[in-house]
């Protein structure tokens, strides 16, 4: 071992230099941390947050458990980007959004309790632009474009199971 390595002042100086250099480095970015975020939607009590993350021009939906910060799996929604206009039911059982399928945009409804993606077919001449799901998931409002004009349709979704009552966690 050399004389310099035994010198406590030298070791402290090296340690300080290492810390200084380390502080100049940006912290490692978590996946998606640097991406722009947009189009937020909250569940009824704000426990869940759905948002669109734009990373390298690819807009994808994320569902975040706000207490843990954890991104929840969305299974069938791994495909069909870009995603737009997410909307959550009260307990987050249902997530409605617009996705791309080939040349067309389509509205879909993810049932997280059953892991199923349900198509929400609109008339062929309407392009969905924006969605809003009622808290109990019994109705859906769709802003769509037809012949260059936007309009809003209110649709009855009573064919599906309603979301659980407020406060009942999804299993």
């Amino acid at each position, binding site marked *: 071992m050399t004389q310099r390595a035994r010198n406590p002042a030298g070791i402290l100086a090296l340690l300080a230099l290492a810390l200084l250099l380390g502080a100049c480095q940006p912290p490692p970015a978590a996946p998606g941390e640097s991406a722009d975020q947009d189009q937020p939607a*909250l569940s009824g009590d*704000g426990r869940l947050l759905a948002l669109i993350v734009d990373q390298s021009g690819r807009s994808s939906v994320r569902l975040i458990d706000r207490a843990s910060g954890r991104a929840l799996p969305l299974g069938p929604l791994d495909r069909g980007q870009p995603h737009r206009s997410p909307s959550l039911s009260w307990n987050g059982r249902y997530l409605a959004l617009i996705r791309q399928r080939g040349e067309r945009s389509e509205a879909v*409804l993810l049932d997280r309790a059953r892991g199923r993606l349900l198509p929400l077919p609109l008339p062929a001449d309407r392009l969905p632009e924006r*969605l809003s799901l009622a808290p109990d998931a019994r*109705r*859906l409002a769709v802003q769509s474009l037809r012949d260059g004009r936007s309009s809003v*349709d209110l649709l009855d*979704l009573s064919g599906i199971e309603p979301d659980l009552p407020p406060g009942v966690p999804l299993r």
Partner: protein
Amino acid sequence: MTPQRLPLLLLAVALLLAGCGGGPGLRPLGSPLEATDPSLGLTTLVTIGTGFAGHRQVQWRPMAALQPLLPPHLDQPDARPLEVSVDGAGQRLVVLRERKGRTELVLHDLRLGVSRPVPLAADGSPGAIGLSADGRQLAVAVSRDGRRRIEVLQLP
């Protein structure tokens, strides 16, 4: 096939055809509305529509009638609503609006008849919004330092 089995076969075909759609049936409730930016509560629909002389205004509709109502204090001549989000009860709504060249957030409580600005945690420009159905939290896309992030604000 015996004639006795024909009804069973027809029933099976009907069930098969019914299951081919794969999704819930969507029944329109009323005619399309000339509006944009819908936000649904349990029994209300809030949109942005066009009023007199092309002025954009927030329109509040009870779902039973779907006739637009204009709650007092909501419409300001010098403000242009850009987006609206309503709570589950249809009584609290947050409007993102443009006024004097800036975007700002305003919370309206229809039950109490009061409006108040919603300040951001730090300087920034608010964008897309989402109000929780209990009306207590607001998620907002905030542009700041060239980046857009989602922030969740606790409302009074």
